[in-house]
């Protein structure tokens, strides 16, 4: 799970309940409180631009968490995540446009459609593994994107579908600060849901399937059932994130859900670190902020205006470079860096190196 090493302070777990507890030590509780307070204070200190960044991070975090559940824990690779987000966004958009449905209908509907699509995306996984599975999700992504585009063009929304802000008690949700808290709550709930799934029977079954299917089956785990469940839950979450994204932007277009988006989500869980919820969050932050960081850095350089036109291409190549860098040099991702840092301070001033023959 997101905590693997015991603490050096002499904290030993003596029962299963302790082992499963989400918050185990006082320092963890303190850190969590500080983190919560920071997040709560943030919107009152930040400008509109930084508020928007935070909202984007929260949306990305929901998507990344759902993909982490599927790929990082259940071991089922998906390159079609953008298709699920698109499905959610389009469900919300279509229901709003055609039936004028309120958000408390469209959001559950999006999640339901996502779950249904999850079954379709997941069915190939019963037979295919690894590469072939990745390819099948890729193909399904193209089908979903095509359906979205087809809807747009046949219904005359060729530039995209506009969605009004959701109304709560007759008042439209337009205030960025309100959006911040809504998205924060959604991301936090998703995190909690994932954490709880992972420390329950389901999460352990996924872990077993990822480690070795044959053994998992011998242990009495229904491979087909749990694989499909992973796809269904992950897809429902992704579609939900897509619908939230549609409401947040007020606009749905198939352009926003390119194949590149799928790859971005995969990059999030790689950069963050496979098999760690914390990693999904770190990856979401990193990948979302990277283009803005690059832009800010470029604008500091002389002749800033001359690069402005090629900013997109620069982002693109930098993204590829970062992804390669993590794959080659830091396969454990940001979480790996974090763990190493932790261990360094835990053992300080000593160092621990595995003996040479250990590998």
């Amino acid at each position, binding site marked *: 799970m997101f905590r693997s090493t015991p603490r050096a302070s002499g904290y030993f777990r003596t029962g299963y309940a302790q082992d499963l507890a989400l918050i185990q030590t006082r320092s963890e509780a303190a850190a969590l409180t500080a983190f919560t307070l920071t997040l709560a204070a943030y919107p009152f200190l930040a400008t509109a631009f930084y508020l928007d960044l935070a909202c984007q991070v929260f949306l990305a975090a929901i998507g990344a968490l759902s993909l982490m559940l599927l790929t990082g824990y259940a071991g089922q*690779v998906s390159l079609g995540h953008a298709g699920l987000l698109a499905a959610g966004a389009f469900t919300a958009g279509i229901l709003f446009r055609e039936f004028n449905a309120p958000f408390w209908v469209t959001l559950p509907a999006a999640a339901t459609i996502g779950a249904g699509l999850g079954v379709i995306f997941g069915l*190939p996984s019963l*037979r*295919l*593994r*690894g*590469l*072939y599975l*990745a*390819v*099948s999700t*890729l*193909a*399904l992504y*193209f*089908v979903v*994107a*095509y359906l979205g*585009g*087809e809807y747009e*063009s046949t219904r005359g929304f060729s530039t995209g579908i506009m969605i009004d802000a959701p109304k709560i008690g007759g008042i439209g949700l337009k205030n960025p600060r309100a959006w911040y808290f809504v998205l924060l709550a959604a991301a936090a709930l998703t995190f909690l849901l994932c954490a709880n799934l992972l420390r329950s029977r389901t999460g352990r079954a996924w872990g077993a399937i990822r480690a070795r299917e044959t053994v998992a089956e011998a242990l009495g785990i229904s491979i087909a059932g749990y694989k499909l469940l992973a796809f269904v839950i992950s897809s429902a979450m992704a579609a939900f994130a897509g619908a939230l994204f549609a409401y947040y932007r007020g606009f749905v277009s198939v352009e926003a859900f390119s194949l*590149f988006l799928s*790859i971005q989500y*995969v*990059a999030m869980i*790689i950069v963050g670190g496979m098999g760690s919820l914390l990693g999904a969050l770190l990856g979401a932050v990193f990948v979302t902020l990277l283009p803005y960081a690059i832009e800010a850095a470029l604008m500091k350089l002389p002749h800033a205006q001359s690069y402005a036109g*090629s900013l*997109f*291409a*620069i*982002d*693109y*190549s*930098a*993204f*590829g*470079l970062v*992804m*390669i860098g993590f*794959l*080659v040099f830091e*396969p454990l991702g940001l979480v790996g860096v974090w763990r190493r840092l932790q261990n360094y301070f835990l053992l300080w001033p000593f160092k621990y190196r595995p003996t040479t023959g250990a590998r």
Partner: protein
Amino acid sequence: MQLVINIVVLAAIYALIACGYVLIYRVSRVLNLAHGELMMLGAYLLLTTATSFSRNAFVAITAAIVLSLVVGILVYVLLMRKMVGEMVLAAVLATVALGILLRGLMVLVWSAQQQYPGQALGLTNPALALPGGGRISTFAAAIVTATAAVYGGLFLFLQFGRWGVRMRAVGQNPLLAAQRGINLHAVYALAWGLSTLTGSVAGMLIALDSGLTDSMAVIGLKAFPAALVGGLDSLLGALAGALIVGAAEVLSIQYIDPLLSDVVPFLVLIAALVMRPWGLFGTREELDRV
């Protein structure tokens, strides 16, 4: 008649691109999702050679082909070599990342505007009338010829060439091949070089036929279903798969909806994955290896 010609041309394009996927997959079990971008890079290399040092079409094309071979080998030496022995999936994601990097760099260097290497070389592209009433553009005919030549050449090379035999050996069992003294890195590098070369030839000819933009990589991705339908480790399969995918695409454009063209190859892919994931001519046990 025209329909048949369209199918043959599209199938030739897909087949020419797909053999790059097959070569790399067969030798190293890596799926190269950057193939579309490498192919596009080949086309841009032609544009560069054409504009910078030779207006002679033959010289420019030969230079670009040699450059693309070098690019392919460099890709292996600089990046994929590090991924040998890693999880297959990590290697595939590395190629995805490479594709993104390349696409960004290409837009930076050559801009995203539509360009015509044919004009730079002073070549025209007249339509040829074929017996039976169909028409085919010169470069489309060149694509069909090139596909036949590449497949013939690859067949002879893999069947009888010293390095071809080594490549097949590595594909069958890398450990055993290495034990017998085959230089794995050299074979992998060669596979990457050849794959990039064939892809680049496809890219150049497509660019000569219909111009060059940064959306060309999509064609490369659409050729992937051809490789898989035929079986990812079979060249003959790639040819058959290309025919199936090409036919399906042309027919659905003609009779159903032109918008379908981007999605039909992937529908065929899904159908293939459901019915026969190892492909028409692929080896069956491959599935459990990945």
